[in-house]
């Protein structure tokens, strides 16, 4: 029942494609409209971060189960400089670029589970879960 696909994340238009695929996956596991919107928005935020700060990478999208509930799992990886201080990066308003600094902390509030694996010089991998 698990369905996995890997999507490229090299240019801006890839973000649109990722949004569309995440929406499809969320629809097919019959997430409610608000949950759908939340996971798609989170995917958009994280993918843009990976593209702008991480120089691009890829996005693994999976339709699966979590504790017996249908779930969508997203893994967005980049090969960029990584995040040296994750705790600081997770604070509302913190930004290393010119954004509003809501990308990471805001996205965490939109999903059911959020984990981040990164260190300076090692790239960043962010995992997002949303279940029914």
């Amino acid at each position, binding site marked *: 029942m698990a369905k996995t696909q890997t999507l490229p994340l090299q240019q801006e238009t890839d973000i*649109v494609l990722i*949004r569309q695929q995440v929406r499809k996956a969320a629809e097919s596991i019959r997430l409610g409209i*608000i949950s759908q919107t939340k996971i*798609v928005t989170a995917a958009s935020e994280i993918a*843009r971060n990976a593209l702008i700060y991480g120089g691009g990478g890829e996005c693994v999208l999976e339709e699966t189960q979590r504790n017996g509930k249908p779930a969508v799992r997203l893994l967005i990886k980049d090969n960029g400089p990584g995040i040296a201080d994750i705790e600081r990066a997770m604070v509302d308003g913190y930004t290393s670029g010119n954004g509003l600094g*809501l990308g990471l902390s*805001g996205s965490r509030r939109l999903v059911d589970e959020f984990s981040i694996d990164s260190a300076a010089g090692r790239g960043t991998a962010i995992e997002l879960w949303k279940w029914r």
Partner: protein
Amino acid sequence: MADKIPILKMGRFLLLSIQVDMHDQLALDLQEDLTHQIVRHKAKGVLIDISALEIVDSFIGRMLSHIANVSRILDAKVIVVGMQPAVAITLVELGLSLEGIATALNTEKGMRRLESMVAEDESVGELESGENADTSASAGD
């Protein structure tokens, strides 16, 4: 995918309806195009219909704030109409509240609101010259 979002002129107002899933460059182009159109048509108001948008992320949110700020400097009012409930809930959760942007439920209400906002702006002069002492107390509103 459309490569340009059409901006319609209607009297003193500009109307635009975002119907496509915008990629970032498209949003930036729209921002720039709109600024030029406001100046060219001496527009007094801009109505942005986002009822077809399925998500508003921080990038689009920033674009809307930017448009509102630039328009304010160019003396045009901006109103955003038709945001879907799911989109609104998600934006709030994300931490964006689009401070300072006027909103309305749909295009009709938005148009009416825009007209009254512009009328209010223009009526100030008449009030001061036409009315006498008893209205001046509330003029500091």
